[in-house]
């Protein structure tokens, strides 16, 4: 929005209690749609609402496109009927689920879910939110066994910290400390003063305190990571760091095994 308005670089602006619906491009009310929504609208126009509603739930009709990493050799885009299960769409049964440590839904600003929850909950935004996650950007990453989830998440948090616009004090300071704390937990657990509770409190210090939602997304990522991988995190705290192995979650500019 800032870029369209001629601001360079396009960084978030503070619009207080208003939203772009009230004041967006050139100060006018602005509608923002994603491409998937427009594609749905075109199909609804062609085949009608009845056809669209024949799939999905009352609250979430139709389907969602999900980019799936960690299921096949390369990432794939899968169309999932809303309200059905991810396990069904990906062909993952209880046996296959055993080799997945956890599922990140919604991308790096989304939230981790226990594999069983991710595979069996109705695939809707409402259900995802009730479990502290979000379908968000439509990305599902299945974290395989054999990688250290804490070390992997620490890399992502450090990357996300670097992606901030650097405008708001709580975000600049808080995300750096969050990344450092995750790195402590991963590699130097004794340096993490206050344990997992301190990490959780730190999340609370950045949530809702930026001009944009970037810090909130990172906080959700961390909160759900230490919840879903609590056993692993506690092992770090009690016995020290594990042999991390190859990282899995890919971060731009750094190598990772995300598409193996």
């Amino acid at each position, binding site marked *: 929005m800032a870029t369209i308005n001629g601001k360079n670089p396009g960084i978030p602006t503070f619009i207080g*209690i208003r939203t772009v619906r009230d004041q967006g491009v050139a100060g006018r009310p602005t509608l923002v749609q994603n491409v998937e929504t427009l594609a749905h609208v075109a199909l609804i126009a062609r085949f009608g609402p009845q056809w669209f509603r024949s799939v999905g739930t009352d609250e979430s009709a139709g389907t969602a496109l999900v980019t799936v990493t960690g299921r096949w050799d390369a990432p794939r885009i899968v169309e999932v009927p809303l309200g059905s299960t991810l396990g069904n769409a990906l062909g993952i049964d209880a046996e296959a689920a055993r080799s997945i440590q956890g599922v990140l839904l919604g991308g790096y600003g989304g939230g981790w879910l226990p594999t069983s929850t991710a595979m069996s909950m109705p695939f809707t935004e409402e259900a995802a939110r009730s479990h502290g996650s979000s379908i968000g950007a439509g990305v599902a990453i299945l974290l395989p066994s054999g990688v250290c989830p804490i070390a992997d998440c620490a890399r992502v948090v450090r990357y996300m910290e670097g992606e901030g616009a650097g405008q708001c004090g709580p975000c600049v300071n808080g995300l750096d400390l969050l990344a450092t704390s995750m790195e402590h937990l991963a590699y130097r657990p004794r340096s993490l003063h206050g344990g997992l509770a301190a990490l959780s409190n730190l999340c609370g210090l950045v949530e809702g305190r930026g001009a944009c939602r970037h810090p909130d997304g990172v906080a959700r990522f961390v909160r759900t990571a230490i919840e879903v991988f609590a056993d692993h995190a506690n092992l770090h705290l009690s016995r020290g760091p594990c042999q991390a192995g190859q990282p899995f979650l890919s971060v731009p500019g750094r190598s990772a095994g995300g598409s193996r």
Partner: protein
Amino acid sequence: MRRARYRLVVDPIACDGAGVCAELFPEMLSLDPWGYPIIRSDEVPDGMLELARKATVNCPRLALTLIKIDK
């Protein structure tokens, strides 16, 4: 008729953590570990509107705003 209700909003981009607001209005504002204000409640308590106003006009960055709550 009900008295108008207000809340405080901080512009986090403009705010540079001077901390004046928390000094003037500690009833509603505290500072985080880096010196940026945390607004403690959603609404300015009854009888504290003058304190809130004082905090907003004394912010060196004019980053604190008093906003009327609709309804």
